[in-house]
């Protein structure tokens, strides 16, 4: 993690890898608290709409 093994012409060379800022936001607690609430709301919407 954080030590990518990217080598051209291999499958691993082509996907996007996160920048430092992305890694920061992923673990920045206030922002993740907001994401936590948003994810919960999205999931509840899915659950409610999934069966009748």
């Amino acid at each position, binding site marked *: 993690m954080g*030590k990518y093994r990217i080598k051209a012409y291999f499958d691993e060379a082509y996907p996007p890898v996160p920048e430092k800022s992305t890694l920061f936001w992923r673990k920045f607690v206030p922002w993740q608290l907001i994401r936590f609430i948003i994810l919960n709301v*999205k999931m509840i919407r899915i659950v*409610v709409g999934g*069966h*009748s």
Partner: protein
Amino acid sequence: MAKVVVLGAGVSGHTCASFLKKKLGKHHEVVVVTPNSYYQWIPSNIWVGVGQMSIDEVRFELKKVYDRWGIVFKQARALEIHPEGDASTGKGYVTIEYTAGDNSGVRENVEYDYLVNATGPKLNFEATEGLGPDKNSYSVCTYSHAAHAWEHLQENIKKMQAGQKQRFLIGTGHAMATCQGAAFEYILNIAHEISKRGLSKMAQITWISNEYEVGDFGMGGAFIKRGGYITPTKVFTESILAEYGINWIRRAGVYKVEDGKAYYETLDGEDKVQEFDFAMLIPSFSGVGMTAFDREGNDITDTLFAPNKFMKVDADYAQKPFEEWSADDWPSTYQNPTYNNIYAVGIAFAPPHAISKPMTSVTGRPIFPTPPRTGMPSGVMGKITALNIAERIHGATEHRHKASMSRMGAACIVSGGFGSFDGLGASMTVFPVVPDWDKYPEWGRDMKYSVGEAGLAGHWLKVLLHYLFFHKAKGYPFWWLIPE
């Protein structure tokens, strides 16, 4: 008084039994038949497999809960279904065999008015030569398998600490295995544990899968909104693997596992070998192998069950080309078409077709994932079946509750490490599980509900779900308010 027999106490069976009892009360009888004395919250087995949770944190004894609820608990396995009864009784019954206690091995016929088959899968290790915890690979499909995997994983960690490089191979151990999500979660957790100990340079971690593209997950992949683009889960998943330093092999049908070697064929027909020091490979699933007999004792197993031993329900099982399959082929009430008092939920029902496009290698070996039916969809099926049966017992003539996998969404949280502030979770939601290209011609699914992101929030959600579902499964106060 009506009697409902539920076979199996996994996510689907346990949910079904709990709602049946809640709706039917003391006036009707609910019986649960299951060979294991414990309920296990399977998603958390992954954390047992990396030493972050103990076995007792992911299971509890069923009898205590069922005694409190007033559900009759029989620790036994179901062997035969006699839906028409026999010469001595006109009532349907199930032949069971006790698996524990003084009456271990004793058989009994349990009559029913309604039967719910929630037996889950048989972990079909035998379908791959040399596969399985008793042979050359590990598994996280049960808590005991996961604990066994962790015992041995520690040896590999010690070897790396002693300066010996180790190769880890995680993925699917059969050309048509499903449950890629569990294997994906395990590989991320292994990578996290190795990284946490500063041993990344000593490890070569490889993902092996029968998916056409990584991120297919047996549901034909998905599209998600991410970074201003509509992105396929292939990119999302490969991105996470690359970040964790994991390389991957796809389109691989593993057919033999030896000590330290996995043999596989690719869709191109190439025969290859991947060497490993530690392998966790998911087996193929089949039905548990119950048989069925009519009133005269004739074998009618083929009437009740599909060839893969899963039970037929209200799906369209007509053989058609992949391009002609539709969302409406999927079942919504899980009622057997021949015997209307029998239902099959969770993994026990026979899916009408694969969700991922069927692919065959040049030598004729089918290499693609079969449909996943675990987790959230299993719980929903169990609940709506319980509600429908309870209403039928109370006089309803139609099924008011429906839940088709082509009309229901799924939320999948893949843990990528454990810890309140250093754990990670990859959260993915799709709606519906089975793509509906008629209703959503552009992306197959509703993009409003399709999300994919990584972060601490996902990890918190996964931990929260662990405790919420235990609360629910144990029947603690207001358990029924927790949605499936």
